[in-house]
């Protein structure tokens, strides 16, 4: 067998999604020699691990990357996945990203002056490493999922492509955040009656006072809120995704909308005893919590609009009706009765760090880090929920984080030691001469 050479470089980025590419651009801007190792291709998860009908729940304008912002004619639209893949492919070319695709990292270990990165295409040595593999590598499934009777088909959102793939009959969708509500409504519309298990969730209207909720979050500064400015960052990082969907009609897909289509709401799936699924009796309170939380969010928007003299430019404030919960929500369901043929686990995702052989994980398997600066010298992480800002996990959140962390990385390389996590907030990345056709289209 051919022995691949060991290559040495200042920095290795693992993962060529939007976060890895944003970081690459920022490192190039600081003349830091680096390589991006990607197990598949650019935007690999988007190409292989998403369902067919998916559109981003963020509007088109909200996909700014270092040197790129949307200049098309539909800033408020929600792009489908193929369009996003195309944008990331073009971005990678435009920034001349030093890509090594189809290169799977198999192990990262500490070395004398940095890290050894083993891949199926040879070995790299680097002084710094940026983990940009994302937060959604593995579909998280409850530990007792294997108690589901074998007559019931189960699948995760990563395996799900379209309703045609599941057999006719009832479907239990477990989880009512963005993924769960989107799959529930699509599957129910296909003629497979859906029961939806609802635990903690974040309710939000698609538009409020005529503007997208994401616009309000952005303009009010909520998305820019920093990780060291919130009272309980651990809790903020655990918050489920907002119940949002990107549709051309800008539909609000809250639980009331789902109920109106005939989807049946039950409490969180609390366990399976024998062949009986047991649902929590907390549904009413989960809905009350979400209604109250949404009320506070909309109050924040109203206050901001008033304080910024925007009252006349946006529509009048409204409040959505409270979530309707039936008198006695179902508490049990016999999975062996044939009523449910399929279970879809929309119970979240977790990162896969099985290749990371550096003692930097906490007891929950998460990287210990301070705003993306990992507790291992020269190691950085990107693209996680509320990493440095509330927007960190969004495509639009990568630019500021990559900018901050690349600055930190530069100082680290210069000083060869861990420095305090203090860095100036973004020098706005200069716009690249790319996507000219979009600019010309205006």
């Amino acid at each position, binding site marked *: 067998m051919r022995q691949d050479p060991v290559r040495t470089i200042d920095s290795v980025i693992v993962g060529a999604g939007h976060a890895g590419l944003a970081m690459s651009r920022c490192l190039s801007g600081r003349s830091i020699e680096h390589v991006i190792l990607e197990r598949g291709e650019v935007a690999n998860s988007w190409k292989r691990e998403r369902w067919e009908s998916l559109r981003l729940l963020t509007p088109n304008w909200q996909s700014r990357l270092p040197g790129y912002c949307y200049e098309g004619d539909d800033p408020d639209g929600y792009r489908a996945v193929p369009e996003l893949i195309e944008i990331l492919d073009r971005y990678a070319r435009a920034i001349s990203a030093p890509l090594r695709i189809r290169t799977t990292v198999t192990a990262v270990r500490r070395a004398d002056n940095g890290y050894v990165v083993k891949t199926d295409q040879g070995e790299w040595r680097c002084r710094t490493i940026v983990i940009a593999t994302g937060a959604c590598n593995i579909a998280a499934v409850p530990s007792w999922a294997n108690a589901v009777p074998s007559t019931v088909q189960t699948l995760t959102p990563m395996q799900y492509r379209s309703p045609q793939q599941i057999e006719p009959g009832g479907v239990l969708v477990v989880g009512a955040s963005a993924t769960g509500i989107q799959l529930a409504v699509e599957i129910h519309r296909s003629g497979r009656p859906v029961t939806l298990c609802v635990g903690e969730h974040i309710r939000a209207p698609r538009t409020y006072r005529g503007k997208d909720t994401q616009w309000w979050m952005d303009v009010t500064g909520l998305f820019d809120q920093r990780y060291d400015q919130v009272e309980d960052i*651990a809790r903020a990082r655990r918050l489920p995704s907002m119940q949002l969907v990107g549709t051309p009609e800008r539909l609000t897909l809250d639980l009331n909308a789902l109920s109106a289509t005939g989807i049946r709401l039950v*409490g*969180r799936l*609390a*366990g399976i*005893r024998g062949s009986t699924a*047991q649902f*929590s*009796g*907390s549904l009413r*309170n989960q809905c*009350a*919590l979400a209604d*109250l939380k949404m*009320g*506070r969010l909309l109050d924040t928007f109203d206050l901001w609009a008033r304080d910024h003299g925007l009252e006349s430019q946006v529509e009048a404030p409204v409040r959505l009706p409270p979530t309707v919960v039936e008198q*006695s929500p179902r508490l049990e369901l016999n999975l062996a009765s044939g009523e449910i043929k399929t279970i879809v686990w929309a119970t979240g995702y977790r990162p896969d760090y099985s290749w990371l052989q550096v003692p930097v994980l906490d*007891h929950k398997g998460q990287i210990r880090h301070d705003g993306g600066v990992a507790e291992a010298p020269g190691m950085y992480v990107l693209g996680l929920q509320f990493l440095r800002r509330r927007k960190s996990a969004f495509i639009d959140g990568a630019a500021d984080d990559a900018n901050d962390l690349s600055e930190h990385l530069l100082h680290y390389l210069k000083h060869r030691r861990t420095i305090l996590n203090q860095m100036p907030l973004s020098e706005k990345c200069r716009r690249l001469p790319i996507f000219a056709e979009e600019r010309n289209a205006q």
Partner: protein
Amino acid sequence: MSVLERQVNNGVNVQALLDARKALSDAPEAAKFQWRASCKWINGTHSHSTIRNFFGLGGEQKHRTEFSFDADHPEIFASEDKGPTPVEYVLVGLTSCLTAGIAAVAQNRGIQLRSVTATIEGSMDMQGILGIDQDVRNGFDGIKVKYQIDADATPNEIKALVAQSQKRSAVFDIITNPTSVSVEVN
């Protein structure tokens, strides 16, 4: 507005709770508690239970005094009514847990409480425990709690207190979610 600025006092030492939370998240082993009670049959449906010790913070702990509880059934079930029924203890457990939670959350949020009262109703179809109808469960078919709260807060802030208290309540969780129970005989 901070707790100090508003001089809120609901008799809850929130700082101690927050310190404990911090300490226990750094030392997860110390967070493992075990609650205990002993029960002795007296006569008929009458039993006497006592509570004194529990385990937590890595060692044996003690209440200041021993607490005791009589449980029985009312006279309409041909019992002597020497104490509340066990299911009524469950109701007491739920409201006292939620009420304690409301005070703690209010303190943490800088809300002064003036009065908090609750009534709780657990409805039950006796055809279950009497074995008349197999389709009727033994336990409550529903529990309703009603709070009357007078506090320095808006109606929505008060609703949020009650909702948050349910979210963090042990007894609410015990009642609304299944728990594995093992009963052994020596």
